[in-house]
């Protein structure tokens, strides 16, 4: 079998080298697809068409299959995230303790649906399927910072702090 030459990096952006590194570490094996997509998302924040195309070609996977994997898993996002992200946990324990009201209140305050980013690109509102901090329900995660026993006032105060930045 002729030696496989991976396609050139899409641009000079250094982050592509990290992505290529993940694939090389796995010997450009097809099973490295999800690992590689994780690297793309952690480096770029989301997966765009160019990224999926590049990964699919490098791993010799049909584009349809790569796209199928990207859309199958909730963790992968096709849209760039806002400057800040608030994630409200919608697991059972949080639900029992009133997360649905928090989500409704945040949707109203930001004028977006969950899963969307505000027009000014400032805040993304996300929901999670349990982050495993159930004993502190309801839980919100603001830019990676986890907060428990959240009240509506606390959440709105946080959103307002981001808005005035």
């Amino acid at each position, binding site marked *: 079998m002729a030696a496989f030459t991976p396609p050139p990096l899409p641009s000079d952006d250094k982050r592509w080298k990290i992505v290529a590194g993940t694939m090389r570490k796995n010997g450009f*094996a*097809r*099973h*490295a*697809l*999800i*690992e590689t*997509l*994780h690297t793309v998302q952690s480096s770029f924040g989301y997966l765009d068409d160019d990224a999926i195309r590049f990964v699919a070609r490098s791993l010799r996977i049909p584009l349809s*299959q790569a796209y*199928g*994997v990207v859309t*199958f*898993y*909730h*963790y*992968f996002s096709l849209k760039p995230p806002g400057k800040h992200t608030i994630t409200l946990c*919608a*697991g*059972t*324990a*949080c*639900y*029992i*303790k009133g997360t649905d009201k928090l989500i409704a209140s945040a949707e109203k305050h930001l004028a977006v649906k969950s899963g969307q980013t505000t027009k000014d690109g400032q805040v993304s509102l996300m929901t*999670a*399927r*349990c*982050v*495993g*901090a*159930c*004993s*502190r*329900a309801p*839980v919100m995660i603001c830019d990676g910072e*986890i*907060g*428990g026993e959240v009240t509506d006032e606390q959440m709105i105060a946080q959103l307002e702090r981001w808005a005035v930045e």
Partner: protein
Amino acid sequence: MTIEELEQIATSVQQENAKYDYEVNVCMDLACASQGAGLLRDALVKIAEASGKKVLVRKTGCMGPCSSGPLVRVDPDETLYGKVKAENAGAIINSLGDQPVAELQCDLNEHFEKQVRVVLENAGHIDPEKIDEYISRDGYKALLTALTEMTPNGVVHRITESGLRGRGGGGYPSGLKWGTVAKASGDLKYVVCNGDEGDPGAFMDRSVMEGDPHRVIEGMAIAAYAVGASKGFIYVRAEYPVAVSRLTTALREARRRGLLGSGICNTTFNFDIEIRLGAGAFVCGEETALLASIEGRRGTPKPRPPYPAVSGLWGKPTLINNVETYANIAPIVRNGGKWFYNMGSERSKGTKVFALTGRIKNTGLIEVPLGIKLWEIIDVIGGGVPGGHKLKAIQTGGPSGGCIPANMMGLGVSYDALMAAGSIMGSGGMIVMDDTSCMVNVARFFVEFCMTESCGKCIPCRAGTAQMYTLLTRFCEGTGTMDDLELLIELCDTVKETSLCGLGQTAPNPVLSTLKYFKNEYLEHIVHKRCPAGVCNMAGVTAAEPATVEVLA
């Protein structure tokens, strides 16, 4: 690495610890960390250094009663402090050698009295990022004993003898599964650890992976020796970044100590483990879907047989067990199968870790011998329902489980008893609901979960859960009829009987169990257009359709 070397490490750790008069353990698990345990630890370290006392401040995994966090335990007195703030650090360090700080002490004796710690024996006692601390508490002794003194068959036999059943929820006898993989032909076999804890409301596996990662690795290595595998994968949810980093550290340390790699303990046994990240798909908790995901594909399940034990990862024989199952292996090998067999109830042996959450006073992680009565968990360990509310139901098994009503609290917790009650053991989430929860709404919540998490491969699950959701939404909005209820019951039956994998087959459970025990709530919603718990908003419906009410009533 030999047993002698292992003992040397253990001794040197003990000697090192003996230099200190006091050990101050700070719980750094997610719940405590979210309440400032990090700042607290820094303050304790600083003040301890300044005090001149011989104090070791250690960061540990989950201690259990998360609702009292951040938690600090001072050894050797075993004084437990709760709700500790960074400004209390001085008081705690000053009290060492004197009376404990009374206002911070937690009185949780009842909470701990009924618990038996096997899986969680090290949680809260060791620094999860230090392999030597694990070794000092008999860590890796079981692996080396198995490698040097036991045959692979002997290990399988011991697991069979212990009566251990899969802790992921299915409850399949582990010894039987191990035996099948061991007997399967093929020179390449895999061992896989299912750490895709997708059940919302469950966090046992996260706490074990974060608080005692070596225990999982040791369990997997013993399993690999028993079944003849040389390669392992731990599949962890991407939502658990701390677990991933702890496991990565643990794997590196284990390789450095020669406990993973080639020629472990001067034998011919080779084994190494790789971590694979999930990407947020509940269905990947199903074993064939999980294997597809490890192979880099969409996580859709396959019909069984062939079972993964015969044809799994890349078509090779594969042993898949849950995190907690592997966490039980080392103690069983160390203490013998009989020791484990003597704990628990008739057909459910050993202990089980539960994540106790919802409307209960002491939320957190508990480990109890199987067969324990539900009321003991709720009233004694959990401290009852707070705020003067009345217990309504306990939900076990996540979206695949069901709700057990308050009048069945005499039930002993075992695989079979929970199954007979219309729920399942599941991976160990236990969510307590009081009179502020509407059971129709809860059923709708779980069906919505299964609907969005359905992988879409088979029609009963893909279309059935969507229709179930539509019907339940009608009830919640007050537009449902008795015909809808009949249709729902019929649909549940179809989805249960004809779905391809566990997700679809168990998706109707929350509906069926709430219908079984809380039918009056459904009838209230349908006939009287009112929600007894006041959760569902039916404004406008009551007035708009009085005629329907008459006819139906």
